[in-house]
């Protein structure tokens, strides 16, 4: 935390850059700006605990202003926590060492739509749903639809290396991004050219996608656009066990079919999410599929997929469950009386593995997490030719805050340990933030030393989002 004299001096300097109305040191504003979507933060808020607060919140309006702000922070060795929509689920925007929250919400404009190349250049602070609606008006879709779409910003998509629910077809944010503008800790501005690909050395763009504000601040991005598909068709198939459903998914991709949506719910998640609305046999697992494209393509993809499912024991549920999921896909994100009662806490450990390991990872994690008085339900989603992701969702309710937070930590620790032991990777799309920062060395191995060296060069004073991604952790 900054002493009051330093805080006042730096705030004054920042006011000179962005204007007095775009800098605040009011405690109320810092309390409200700390709010994120990490389930642990939400549970702590409900329990009446305070989240870590910044000393200053600054709202720059341009890349140049971001640059000037960072120069001041760097000169004064002030921690900087960039924040976009404040919708991260891993605590990545919590200012755990105080200092400055650099809030990008004012940078919310579409700068250009290139119809010929089907690209949009957009500022990092634009809310996802606002951008999607704007490109829809021109006949396009981003193809990037995370559940946080209404709250998360473009900068957050990139900083956390996110994926949307239709990522199997359209790709993840790194596939959707052609160019970036980044401001480094010393205020220098880096632009990576927006081209489909290149062979000019390593792709620097990739270095910053997923860097969670630890290497610089992403200020704008050039993203791909897709024509809004002529048709989106839904299909649902139930399987008697997880294994046969996973086999069907693997074979669908092997047949060169790429559905836009592939979500496979294990028996517990099927009971929770599907069976309340559809008559599913107890213990079955439900596969939800969607196909995007022209009628001919959709016909073909659907037919082949259904054949494969049937050959693997799939029972046809028509479009119902899949369509219902699409229409209610944001509902599960809302708080409910059940999920917020007392000292309840739930979270999702979204992991990724190749097909040869996927089922083992699932079973090992489930066993490890259930050992801690947790209800665990899972779905496989974001599936690809070579493997896919599992949403290991857990929920626990404890008598007091101390026990709840400790139980939460144990479930995470043992869940991630099981994931790594079985050859999975601990995060598919939510990032690392704080919730996974203690596991990053185990995950990356010697690669973590490379990351640390890069961090040391780009941010020698360690001001950029310290404590996140396991980088810049202070005693």
């Amino acid at each position, binding site marked *: 935390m900054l002493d009051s004299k330093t805080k006042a001096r730096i705030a004054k300097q920042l006011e000179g850059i962005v204007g007095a109305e775009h800098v605040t040191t009011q*405690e109320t504003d810092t*309390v409200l700006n700390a709010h994120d979507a990490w389930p642990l933060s939400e549970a702590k808020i409900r329990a009446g605990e305070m989240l870590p607060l910044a000393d200053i919140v600054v*709202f720059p309006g341009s890349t140049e202003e971001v640059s000037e702000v960072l120069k001041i922070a760097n000169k004064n060795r002030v921690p900087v926590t960039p924040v976009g929509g404040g919708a991260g689920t891993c605590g990545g925007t919590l200012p755990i060492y105080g200092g400055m929250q650099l809030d990008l*919400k004012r940078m919310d404009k579409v700068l250009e739509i290139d119809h010929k190349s089907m690209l949009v250049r957009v500022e990092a602070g634009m809310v996802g749903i606002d951008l999607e609606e704007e490109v829809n008006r021109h006949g396009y879709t981003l193809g990037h639809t995370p559940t946080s779409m209404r*709250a998360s910003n473009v900068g957050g998509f990139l900083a956390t290396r996110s994926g949307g629910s239709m990522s199997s077809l359209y790709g993840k944010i790194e596939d959707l991004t052609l160019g970036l503008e980044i401001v480094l800790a010393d205020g220098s501005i880096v632009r990576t050219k927006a081209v489909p690909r290149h062979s000019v050395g390593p792709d620097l763009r990739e270095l910053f996608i997923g860097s969670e504000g630890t290497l610089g601040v992403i200020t704008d991005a050039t993203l791909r656009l897709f024509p809004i598909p002529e048709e989106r068709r839904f299909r649902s198939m139930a399987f008697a066990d997880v294994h046969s459903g996973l086999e069907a998914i693997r074979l669908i991709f092997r047949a060169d079919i790429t559905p836009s949506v592939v979500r496979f719910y294990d028996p517990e998640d099927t009971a929770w999410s599907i069976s309340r609305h559809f008559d599913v046999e107890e213990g079955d697992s439900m596969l939800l599929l969607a196909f995007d494209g022209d009628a001919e393509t959709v016909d073909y993809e659907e037919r082949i997929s259904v054949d494969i499912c049937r050959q693997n024991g799939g029972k046809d549920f028509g479009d119902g469950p899949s369509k219902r999921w699409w229409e209610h896909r944001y509902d599960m*994100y809302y708080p*409910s009386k059940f999920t917020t009662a007392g000292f309840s806490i739930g979270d999702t450990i979204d992991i990724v593995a190749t097909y040869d390991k996927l089922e083992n990872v699932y079973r090992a994690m489930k066993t490890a997490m259930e050992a801690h008085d947790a209800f665990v339900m899972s779905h496989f989603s974001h599936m690809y030719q070579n493997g896919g992701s599992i949403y290991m969702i857990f929920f626990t309710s404890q008598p007091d805050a101390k026990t709840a937070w400790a139980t939460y930590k144990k479930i995470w620790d043992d869940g991630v340990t099981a994931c790594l032991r079985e050859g999975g990777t601990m995060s598919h799309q939510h990032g690392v933030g704080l919730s996974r920062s203690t596991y990053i060395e185990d995950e990356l191995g010697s690669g973590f030393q490379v990351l640390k060296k890069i961090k040391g060069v780009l941010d020698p004073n360690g001001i950029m989002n310290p404590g996140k991604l396991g980088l810049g952790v202070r005693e």
Partner: protein
Amino acid sequence: MIYDEDIAQQIRMCAACPKMCRHVCPTFLAWRSESPTPHGRALLLHQEITGTRPLDDRAIEVLYQCLECSHCLTWCIPEIDIAEIVEMRRIQLVEEGRFPSGLNPMVDSIRTHHNPYKEPNEKRTSWLKIPKNDGRSLVYFTGCTAAYRENSIAQDAVSVLSSLGYQVNIPEDEWCCGSPLLRTGFVEEALEQARHNVEILNSMDAEEIVVTCPGCYRVLTQDYPKHGLEINKPVRHIAELLQSHLKSLPEFELDGQVTFHDSCHLGRHSGIYEQPREVIERVSKGALVEMERNRDNAMCCGNGAGLRTLFPEHAKKIGAERVRQAERTGAKYLVTSCPFCKNMLESQAKDRLIVLDLPELVEMAKKQSHVKTD
């Protein structure tokens, strides 16, 4: 501040929500900050309830950076009405004497002049020309904005009502309905106005009361009864009344399309969505085109619950955005059925759109159709 358990639970849930409604919150748009947001307001109240942190002056200011437009409620599956909760806390803040001083001129003006515009009350409706008619008798409660700032709405309303055969009666000593006071927490001051209005209205000999202002409509039909003040005749918004005379309304060819802005008090707070649309469709011969955000998903104009009084520049930003949304439809006319909304939208539309209130559109149709007939 003590809340009942159910309200406290709602506040607790909203305070820790992952921001499922923030994208439609007009004050989030205006400030681009996490502070004036639904979950932000809830978090401040939740921390006060749990004893984590009392409201400081900035927190109180944040609670007044709310339009009480209830747009967030449209997007809230747990159906938490944070606007109503904010208003509950504002009432207490006023009782505690901890409200923003920027509200004082408005409160003083209503107390002294019975309108928020510091205008003499005797000139409220003295300028209105009321035709004689033998038809059914109704009372037109003009409201302050049509009386002092948007005169053509009041005059056209009278003209249209007369054309439909009504004998229009104007209360001799109408006072502010109390809406600006109620929405900012000044209940006692509002009830002083309300009691006077109820007495005047109940003493008048007429079959019904019609209003052009949705703020008045909500207060007369919902707030007055809530406080035990009963009006002895039915109250209708002019959109409802006109819709009941649909076949008698004039029709005309407009030189462009019309889009309709739902006012929060008429729409989300009173559930009146279709009546004004049916009137527009009738008089414009089907020229209505909808904005992307319409009906219960319509964006507020930015003029409500004291926001324009306290934060005029931010209120205008919201109005300007609503105008942009209207422009996107390609319409030439932006029609609303609220004098307060019209005032804001017209100020932001400049000459890019023709902004009209519903009676003005009908009066236009009446004149045009007469021209054609002649």
